């Protein structure tokens, strides 16, 4: 029997309403997340990729209930966290954590590293005194920071070190699940590898599951077990990491994987690129039918009117396209 997934997201929607007009009497509806479903198993990493504004961060935040979902459900350990009472949710909060994109903006500059790392433990009243000190030391060692830096302030650390502080803080409460929203995007290449290796080592040792949000596809492939590709508020394809690259079924994924630069001049010369025309439309005014159709090289009439539903096209391989798997002639 297959174990239940740790996290099950079912048709999740998050729409923002932005007031417009002189007196804010009208509103624009932005369908930032528009019907997203996926599972995540314990100890697994699901990569979430897609272009800027496609709704990755909003998905991460809504799953954590930092935003109230417009509709849909999020089951964590079989409990629907979209409807459970606050008290119970609070208990669950210690099992779910988040690491944000910008290690500069998300650390309070007036707090010491110790205060920052121990904050979740203190908020949830889990530890104090000598025990807390001991735990902070242990966490700092875990993420490769010298515990003697405990009394220092964020500005005394480099970007990579600050991201380690964020990770130590997220891990302080022994979470089962961490949403990592672009945890390495602000870091230099040589430092990115330090943080990615750390995340992988911690997963091996502690069995944490990650939702790893990023736009660098090669890094996402490296760290994830499975990958979900988002476009304009929807998941258009989801499959194992090799499968996504070796056998992309959705035309958007095909173009995305073909556009990722490969650090090998020989391979770059051999490659066929599928270069999309145009740019992603606004989620405030999404196209009818398939949201990808205005840029899709294989779109036909049906794509302009019928929304393609996500379907398991091959075992474990999901895609939302009327013509999933149709190869694109080079352009």
């Amino acid at each position: 029997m297959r174990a239940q997934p740790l996290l099950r997201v079912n048709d999740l929607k998050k729409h923002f309403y932005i007031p417009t007009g002189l007196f804010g009497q009208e509103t624009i509806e932005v369908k930032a997340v528009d019907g997203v479903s996926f599972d995540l198993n314990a100890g697994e990493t699901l990569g979430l990729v897609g272009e800027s504004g496609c709704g990755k961060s909003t998905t991460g935040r809504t799953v954590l209930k930092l935003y109230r979902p417009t509709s849909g459900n999020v089951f964590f350990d079989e409990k629907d966290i979209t409807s459970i009472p606050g008290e119970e949710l609070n208990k669950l909060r210690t099992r779910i954590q988040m690491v944000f994109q910008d290690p500069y903006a998300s650390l309070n500059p007036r707090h010491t590293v110790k205060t920052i790392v121990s904050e979740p433990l203190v908020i949830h009243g889990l530890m104090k005194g000598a025990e807390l000190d001991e735990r902070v030391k242990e966490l700092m060692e875990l993420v490769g920071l010298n515990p003697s830096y405990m009394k220092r302030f964020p500005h005394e650390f480099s970007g990579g070190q600050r991201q380690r502080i964020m990770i130590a803080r997220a891990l302080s409460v022994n979470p089962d699940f961490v949403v990592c929203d672009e945890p390495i995007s602000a870091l230099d290449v040589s430092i990115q590898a330090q943080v990615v290796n750390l995340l992988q080592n911690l997963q091996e040792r502690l069995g944490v599951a990650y939702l790893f949000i990023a736009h660098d596809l090669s890094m996402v492939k490296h760290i994830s077990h499975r990958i979900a590709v988002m476009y304009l508020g929807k998941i258009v394809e989801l499959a194992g990491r090799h499968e996504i690259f070796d056998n992309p079924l959705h035309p958007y994924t095909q173009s995305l994987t073909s556009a990722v630069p490969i650090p090998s001049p020989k391979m770059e010369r051999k490659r066929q690129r599928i270069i999309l025309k145009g740019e992603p439309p606004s989620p405030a005014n999404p196209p009818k039918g398939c949201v990808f159709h205005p840029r899709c090289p294989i779109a036909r009439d049906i794509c302009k009117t019928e929304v393609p539903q996500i379907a398991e096209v091959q075992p474990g391989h999901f895609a939302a396209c009327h013509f999933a798997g149709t190869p694109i002639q080079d352009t």
Partner: protein
Amino acid sequence: MASILKVKNLVTKFHTVDGVVNAVNDVSFLLEDGETLAIVGESGSGKSVSMMSIMGLLPMPPAKVEGGQALFNSKDGPVDLIQLPYEAMSDIRGGQIGFVFQDPGTSLNPILTIGKQISETLIRHLGISGREAKDKTVSLLAEVGIPDPTLRFDAFPFQLSGGMRQRVMIAIAVACAPRIVIADEPTTALDVTIQAQIVNLFKELRVKMGVSTIWITHDLGLVAGLADRVLVMYAGQILESAQVDELYENPKHPYTIGLLGALPRLDTQESKRLVSIDGTPPDSTILIHHCPFAWRCAHAFERCWNEKPALTTVGEKHTVACFYAMEEGR
């Protein structure tokens, strides 16, 4: 091949309240006619400041170009861009040398239409009439792939997406058929599918106009598909330079080897841990008299802490500044 730009011993510092920032420390390189040269390096390694020193674009003070030459083979014969008076430099900038910045948001004038901004460049550098400039602008906009160029002529920068603004920047940079285009991270702020469009556009323009290009980036993946030759910068210095194939297949500097190892490979099935380089780049307010990478280098030995390695030839068009690599090569 003839060189079109020859930079020699460039030194640039910033005199700030927190001390002297050693941004560019004795940088020398050549740009050959028609080639695409990539300068790669991490944040703060001096890529932008070295280009802005050459183009006279730095705020002085606090910046000061304290030494060096940049010999440019201009239409009217060789000139040293560093010594050129302001007026003459302004003529070359935007005329014979085009510049594309990382953030098109800040380098386009927000209160002028894009059509006006391009045609003014044309009028100023080519001395053509307003009518002619408008026609040429529309055809340039079409050439860089802006849909409905006649309509977009009257658009303001905020009405365009990031990718479109970058296309406008490129149109301005190539408007006067320059001999060199310097592009400072022109795709860093863009998504991969838009990045692929812009890279493609550059390749087309290069074939069409035969322009020499300097492309600044920190993305070693991008460089592989784009450059003829690569310079690797670190702490204001060039640590290695080689033809693109040679650099990826036969990197010599421990830093270059580290950078390549830190990248995930899409071309293999197995997933090994990435090679990480411990530590961080040095503080740029310290003037370093030894190898700037020594702190992070697994091969560092006594000499690396006592002397500064100079760029030394280790193969055809391949130079490296590392004592370990030099000894190994012998």
